[in-house]
């Protein structure tokens, strides 16, 4: 198998940093990452190996961090990057291709109509303003009359919300909606720029916070995985800001090894083959 080595032409190098080399391995990786939207680290490693197998099976698989940094150096001039994040509920590392230059809804704009996008914005606002990071289906649906564009009935809006879930923009839990980890990764900048006053931020990592724990005395908030790391093996957890006793249950730090031992991970998709009848 021949791999297609093309170095980046000079007119692309708008950066003072040394720009990396793109081969078909990297291109395939980018394509698949984009198609999936967001992937967990374990899947990303599998994906990387797959791309090497297809395009350059004799090469050694580069360390993931370097591999991604290489690609990011090429993407820099396009204001795109592969961003690493962590799921808010259980601290799994995730990766997504994030657009740094355009506003959030650009990726959604081609999949959704004007009124659907507006429904998303309304849901987003409710989620950001909420205490728990969740907005109830009822509250979102009550805003249907305020939507821009074509009139939408509540029944239709319910289906649109499901569409958002399918496209990994929202997550539903018991009739309530919050942002999918993909949305948080992709839209953090947009959210912070658009809702600078309402936005919550984690006291530890200073990133956008949708779900988390708060100190009942001084009100600072922390992501669950940040709480897990900060209070790891601390028998008397205390608020980093006001030193009051931290009243919530301390979650466990995410351990990828334990995850693999537990067997099938949530996002393990087997390749599909056409069924033989």
């Amino acid at each position, binding site marked *: 198998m021949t791999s297609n080595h093309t170095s980046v032409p000079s007119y692309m190098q*708008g950066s003072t940093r040394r720009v990396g080399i793109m081969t078909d391995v990297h291109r395939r990786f980018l*394509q698949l990452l984009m*198609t999936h939207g967001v992937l967990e680290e374990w899947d990303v490693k599998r994906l990387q190996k797959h791309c090497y197998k297809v395009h350059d099976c004799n090469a050694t698989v580069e360390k993931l961090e370097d591999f991604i940094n290489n690609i990011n150096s090429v993407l820099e001039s396009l204001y795109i990057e592969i961003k690493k994040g962590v799921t808010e509920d259980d601290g799994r590392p995730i990766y997504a291709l994030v657009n740094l*230059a*355009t506003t959030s809804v*650009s990726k959604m704009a081609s999949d959704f109509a004007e009124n659907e996008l507006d429904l998303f914005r309304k849901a987003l606002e409710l989620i950001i303003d909420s205490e728990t990071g969740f907005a109830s289906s009822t509250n979102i649906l009550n805003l249907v009359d305020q939507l821009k564009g074509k009139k939408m009935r509540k029944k239709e809006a319910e289906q649109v919300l499901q569409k958002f879930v399918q496209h990994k923009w929202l997550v539903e839990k018991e009739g309530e909606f919050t942002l999918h980890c993909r949305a948080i990764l992709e839209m953090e900048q947009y959210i912070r720029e658009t809702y600078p006053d309402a936005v919550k931020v984690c006291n530890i990592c200073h990133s956008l916070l949708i779900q988390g724990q708060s100190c009942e005395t001084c009100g600072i908030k922390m992501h669950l995985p940040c709480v897990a790391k900060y209070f790891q093996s601390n028998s008397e957890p205390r608020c980093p800001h006001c030193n009051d006793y931290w009243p919530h249950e301390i979650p466990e730090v995410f351990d990828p090894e334990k995850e693999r031992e537990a067997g099938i991970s949530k996002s393990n998709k087997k390749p599909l083959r*056409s069924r033989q009848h």
Partner: protein
Amino acid sequence: LPKRPRGRGPSTSRILSGWEGPSTSWALSAWEGPSTSRALGLWENPGSPQFETQPLSPLDERANALVQFLLVKYQAKVPIKRSEMVKFIIREYKDECLDIINRANNKLECVFGYQLKEIDPKNHSYIIINKLGHHKGEPVASNLDTPKLGLLMVVLSLIFMKGNCVREDLIFNFLYRLGLDVQETHTLFGNTKKLITEVFVRQKYLEYRRIPYTEPAEYEFLWGPRAFLETSKMLVLRFLAKLHKRDPRCWPFQYIEALAECESEDADDDEPGSSDKCGDPTSGSPPR
């Protein structure tokens, strides 16, 4: 270089884009905002810590923005008109629009392995195809697409087997016999009839033509330009063969036709990247 206006972010961009306007551009509003203005060089942001880049030429800046625009469009799989590119991204540089489109295409190929292909030279309409071998052997991404692609393969193969052109009712009857009633709302496909007659057609996988002199109007299906670019008759035949556990040569006429297409493709195919040919077409089981 002309003096760049001092942008104050959102308001400037909105004025420039006519965002307040009714019809056009909720879509454009997706491209407007402080970050986009930065990307289009409309903001002077000295000492921006994030991007310590040397200034790009305005054509390259527009080409970069166009690449992002195209990537979003790629996911939607709908054709893109040159006029859209000019309206939303190229704007005042429209005299250099072909140059910008070329630059964007180069980056698209070099970085992502995609390629812009003009499918309608009269109306200047383009689609984006995957240069890394349209013979995808890989699991397709989201659960959303795989069953739909499976359905599409079934429809494409039926059209091919029936001589490249099939009446609409034949397709729907065939699907019905497979257990899929296009009139009913399906858990995976939703409005199946709409999926086939509108979505697949819009994405250029299928062509939907009115049969002349029919009253009430009747329609027929053919392969669309994207189907020809992204798959091949041979792949479709192999898909069918696998399904029926038979050899593709059991269908001699179609086999010969598929071979002829392969040979004509090989004749003008000089790409080195065809190493990832796998027998497996975009996979998916036919609907139950």
